[in-house]
């Protein structure tokens, strides 16, 4: 097979494996929707002061950010150490499948799940909570999703590279992302969060990804809604993740 054909071949099987695993589908696809229903229902009509939007309009981009990170960083950083420990990565490494094709299949898998989740959250936001789907800022939203999915996939490989065992993987991953969801305004509206905390969250990529996503959904946005500054910081984190992954990723179980 040629390079692209083998990537598509690998991607097809990654998709099959994902949709057949009920636990994976629940944590990656269903859990973000449960958060959406909870948060958007509880705070549907609360005005988010300072931003001049309703709660539902705030939480749709927030949960889209969470869903993309779940489909990329969280999924990769929990699955890959388990597959490494089971000897599956070592076995694949012994075949002619180029490592880059394996990685591309996984990133493609995460990207497609991300896009499906973005579509689901957007449609539910529009139909159930009357949130307006972006029109003139749609290109900005799609670019934000693409940049985020790539960069948070790189960070997933980086985390998988430094996490030693399958047992540690969910704990380390959740201990990394969950506090940042709270501090970055994904769970709690940012007007409730002290400035000092937001400044701390600004050191990490989740806050910047969410800010770029929020601008694309904010009805008060006047221009095209591209947040190049925030996206640049997300991209820098992705590049950092790529370097860590290339340097430290291992295919064989540790003994």
């Amino acid at each position: 097979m040629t390079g692209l054909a083998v990537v598509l071949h690998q991607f097809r099987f990654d998709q099959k494996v994902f949709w057949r695993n009920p636990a994976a589908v629940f944590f990656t696809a269903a859990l973000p929707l449960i958060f959406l229903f909870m948060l958007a229902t509880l705070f549907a009509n609360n005005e988010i002061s300072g931003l001049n939007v309703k709660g539902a309009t705030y939480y749709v981009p927030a949960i889209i950010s969470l869903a993309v990170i779940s489909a990329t960083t969280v999924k990769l950083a929990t699955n890959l150490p388990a597959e490494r420990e089971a000897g599956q990565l070592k076995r694949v490494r012994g075949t002619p499948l180029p490592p880059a094709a394996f990685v591309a299949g996984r990133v493609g898998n995460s990207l497609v799940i991300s896009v499906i989740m973005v579509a689901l959250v957007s449609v539910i936001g529009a139909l159930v909570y009357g949130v307006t789907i972006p029109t003139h800022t749609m290109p900005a939203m799609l670019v934000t999703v693409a940049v985020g999915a790539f960069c948070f996939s790189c960070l997933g490989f980086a985390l998988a590279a430094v996490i030693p065992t399958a047992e540690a993987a969910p704990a380390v991953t959740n201990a990394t992302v969950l506090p940042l969801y709270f501090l970055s305004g994904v769970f709690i509206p940012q007007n409730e969060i002290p400035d000092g905390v937001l400044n701390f969250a600004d050191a990490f990529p989740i806050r910047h990804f969410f800010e770029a996503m929020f601008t694309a959904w904010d009805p008060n946005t006047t221009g095209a809604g591209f947040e190049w500054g925030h996206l640049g910081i997300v991209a820098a984190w992705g590049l950092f993740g790529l370097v860590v992954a290339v340097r430290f990723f291992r295919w064989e179980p540790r003994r």
Partner: protein
Amino acid sequence: MADSVISVQGLRKSYDDFEAVKGIDLEVTAGEIFAFLGPNGAGKTTTVEILEGYRPRNGGEVSVLGVDPQRADRSWRNRVGFVLQECRLVPELTPREAVEQYAGYYAHPRDVDDTVNLVGLADKADVRTSKLSGGQQRRLDVALALIGDPELLFLDEPTTGFDPSARRQAWDVIGGLRDLGKTVFLTTHYMDEAQALADRVAIIASGRIVATGSPESLVDRGLPQTEIRFRLPQGVAASELPAALATAARVDAGLVTMNVADPVPALRELTTWAGDRGVGLPGLTVGSPSLEDVYLQLTERGDGAEAPE
């Protein structure tokens, strides 16, 4: 040598200050089933992982299919198949799908259905691999190693943990690889497995090759032809055995094993001794020594330091 598939000279590998492999030589020729035996910690897995290209070495020359496995590339991996010691299958796929997935990695794969049939999984081809027994999963593992139609297969302890009937089925599959013209490098610590399958055997102990040859030649070379076994009669100590035989006897947990060149005088001596004392010789058997006896004799030569594997 034109038909040499694996050629190893003076291979060395150390972990920190522990020398796991202390300069070994191996030759495996095309079309043979070669069994690599040794106790845990003898350097067996280290050697195999070097041959498979997973581990760098500290010294020596290694050529596998004419390529140094340290510089293994995609075309080399197209010619080699692996069954690793420990590898869980993907539980969400069926055997047919798992084989299809691996078929896509190779330049000239075998037919998927043929390969599933070859390992005896035709009637399980469309159930999830999580529903297969341990023996069936291992046979699927062999199918995954075979699908690329490799010239050389590495099978690392392919039947560890199997019940006897699953082992027989796996042996049938591995024996069948010979008919396909494959070269097989088999790692095992079951002597009967090596005896049943292998054309040639190498035994490694404490990082050194202690014997190579056909299973029959090792048995011939290692020990005198006839083996007499019995349990020590109740109330009789090993030191009370007839002096002429005591030197040839090994006593292990009350089981006496003696290897003798000529069984007739030895048996006469033994039965006379037993008759005089009025004791029996429970479980008395007279037969040929097995590869296991040779193996135990060769690998038990008092080497203390064992590496964790």
